């Protein structure tokens, strides 16, 4: 993977020194809170409900073991012994003290990490397919392009004061695991007629209070044109994006108000104008970055023992069935380590767990780790012969949960347990659902099902693209939960449909159970997934199950 150059290192350390000075000036009164707030946000430091929160970028979700260990050390030394992995492949520390933050940022700089541009109206952490560089279905590893975009967008003078925040996601596979259609820019790698890799460019997707699926503005963009094209999109947005209304400032609204055709024309015009200014330096840099992402030296060894172990051990088999994905090297597997143990907080890992994951990545995983937007940890390159030993080590540390892609593998934002913007809690809802279906031993029978929970309309929990989405709201001083059904964040992305009136906190679990019971009753076979059933039947049977006394229900 990419290691910081001297330039990167000097840039990040200069920023840490600047921020240390800013914190000191805030504490001695030289800076007011009004002056300090934008400075701390530029460095990823928020003030939440109970404490400060530091959001650290994990570019395109990739970590090496040294970085993972350092995150564990930060969790133990300056926080409460854990960190929270987010839906944007970041990690959040929920309890840092203001005066400790410069030391934390310095510890991050020691391992080539930072919290720059994890807040504010700028280009945020570029997210990528968490199986990048390993997936069997991949055309090319998208991370070199993501790293190029990171370098280009970091402190880019033209794009530090965009109308609103800007999120780019990229995948190298036709199967979209990076939710590219719900991003400001989504880049999906495809091949042209000659077999050359390039990108399908999607603009204007997003969730939040106005959820929209992005529009294709280019069927095929040659790789060499990527940077000027992305710059053209940003320039057009920077000019047209609305600064008069924060809620209409995202590019999805710009596209909606301008029209896809006109927006495409403006982007293409701007692209034609700036393309000649890119004299090939970006491509030379990309070639250097690509070399840093060369695949590991894969081992060539027999895998038969793993198959025998799988046949003999039902616990291992259950885990292998849900938590492994196809690697492009048939002797290898992609391992998803679930951070969704039943009843635990989705996406949280303790310092000890982080250190163990770092050790295991070194021992069994060619020293690579990934964080998924689904809040799990990935070991992308594990030789199949190592899987039984890896699983045993994970299970001992509470990391062996066999539920990836199932009903308890829930995305949940921090919600009102931490977030100052939240209107209701998310985490306890996720905990209750996971515990309940685990106790019923039903989740493997239910099969693939994505539940996503957000604690406010900003939709950090991606509820709009959950097969079942749950949105927590404040209705007259009481937590109330709205359900959406049929959402999909993949290459066949769809915004979920609202089922009807919301449910009180103690009624949301029974409501989810009624949906599941209806699904199990009407699916055509155990192979028909929840989403397939919903697409076949529509809302009707689920609505009937959710609101058996339709008419008697209070409108939420």
């Amino acid at each position, binding site marked *: 993977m990419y290691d910081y150059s001297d330039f990167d290192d000097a840039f990040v350390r200069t920023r840490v020194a600047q921020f240390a000075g800013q914190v000191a000036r*805030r*504490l001695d*009164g030289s800076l*007011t*809170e009004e002056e300090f707030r934008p400075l701390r946000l530029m460095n990823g430091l928020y*003030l*939440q*409900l*109970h*404490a*400060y929160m530091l959001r650290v970028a994990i570019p395109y979700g990739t970590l090496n073991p040294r970085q993972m260990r350092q995150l564990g050390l930060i969790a133990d030394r300056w926080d*409460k012994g854990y960190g929270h992995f987010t839906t944007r492949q970041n990690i959040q520390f929920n*309890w*840092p*003290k*203001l*005066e400790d933050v410069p030391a934390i940022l310095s510890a991050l700089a020691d391992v080539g990490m930072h919290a720059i541009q994890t807040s504010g109206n700028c280009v945020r952490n570029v997210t990528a397919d968490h199986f990048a560089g390993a997936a069997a279905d991949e055309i090319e590893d998208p991370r070199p392009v993501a790293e190029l975009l990171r370098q280009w967008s970091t402190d880019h003078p033209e794009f530090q004061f965009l109308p609103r925040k800007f999120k780019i996601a990229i995948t190298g596979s036709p199967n979209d695991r990076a939710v590219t259609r719900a991003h400001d820019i989504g880049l999906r790698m495809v091949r042209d007629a000659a077999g050359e890799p390039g990108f399908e460019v999607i603009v204007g997707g997003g969730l939040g209070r106005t959820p929209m699926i992005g529009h294709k503005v280019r069927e095929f963009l040659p790789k060499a044109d990527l940077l000027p094209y992305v710059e053209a999109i940003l320039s057009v947005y920077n000019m047209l994006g609305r600064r008069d209304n924060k809620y209409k400032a995202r590019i999805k609204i710009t596209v909606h108000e301008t029209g896809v055709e006109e927006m495409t024309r403006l982007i293409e015009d701007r692209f034609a104008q700036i393309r000649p200014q890119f004299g090939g330096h970006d491509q030379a840099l990309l070639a250097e970055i690509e070399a840093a992402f060369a695949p590991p030296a894969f081992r060539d060894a027999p895998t038969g023992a793993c198959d025998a172990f799988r046949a003999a051990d039902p616990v291992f088999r259950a885990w292998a069935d849900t938590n492994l994905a196809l690697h492009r090297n048939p002797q290898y597997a992609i391992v998803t380590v679930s951070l969704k143990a039943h009843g635990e*907080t989705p996406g949280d890992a303790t310092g000890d767990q982080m250190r163990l994951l770092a050790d295991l990545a070194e021992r069994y995983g060619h020293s690579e780790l990934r964080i998924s937007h689904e809040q799990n940890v990935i070991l992308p390159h594990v030789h199949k012969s190592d899987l039984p030993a890896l699983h045993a080590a994970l299970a001992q540390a509470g990391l062996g949960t066999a539920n990836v892609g199932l009903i308890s593998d829930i995305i949940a934002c921090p919600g*009102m*347990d*931490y977030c100052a913007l939240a209107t209701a*809690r998310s*985490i*306890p809802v996720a*905990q209750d659902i996971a515990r309940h279906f685990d106790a019923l031993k039903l989740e493997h029978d239910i099969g693939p099902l994505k539940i996503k929970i957000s604690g406010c309309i900003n939709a950090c929990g991606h509820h709009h693209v959950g097969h079942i989405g749950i949105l927590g709201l*404040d209705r007259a*001083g*009481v*937590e109330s939960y709205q359900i959406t059904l049929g959402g999909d964040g993949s290459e066949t992305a769809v915004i979920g449909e609202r089922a009807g009136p919301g449910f009180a906190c103690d009624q949301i679990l029974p409501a989810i159970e009624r949906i599941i019971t209806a699904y199990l009753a009407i699916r055509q076979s155990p192979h028909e997934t929840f989403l397939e059933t919903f697409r076949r039947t529509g809302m009707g049977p689920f609505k009937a199950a959710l609101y058996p006394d339709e008419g008697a229900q209070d409108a939420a």
Partner: protein
Amino acid sequence: MKGRFTPKVVTANDLRLGDVVYLTADDRWSRLHREAELIADEAEAQRRLHFAAAQKLTVVGVCLADAKAGPHGPEPVHFREAFRARGPSNYPHGKQADLT
């Protein structure tokens, strides 16, 4: 028509720790909701808010929050304030652990 004024407490976050604090009647910042000054008068609430907001080296995000009288002192009215007064529900962290 003006509704009846709901009693308030002045609350903020501690500048250094980020922890939730409440203004007391004797001008201290307490970490306990029950030690807050319960202000029944609207003009007095504004006066106390201005007094608190001037303490820029101690607190940030000063605001008024609805509260009601309870057996041990003021209690939060809204669930958000109840969480602020207690801590998160997924771990025994924050005030619920630090102050017991």
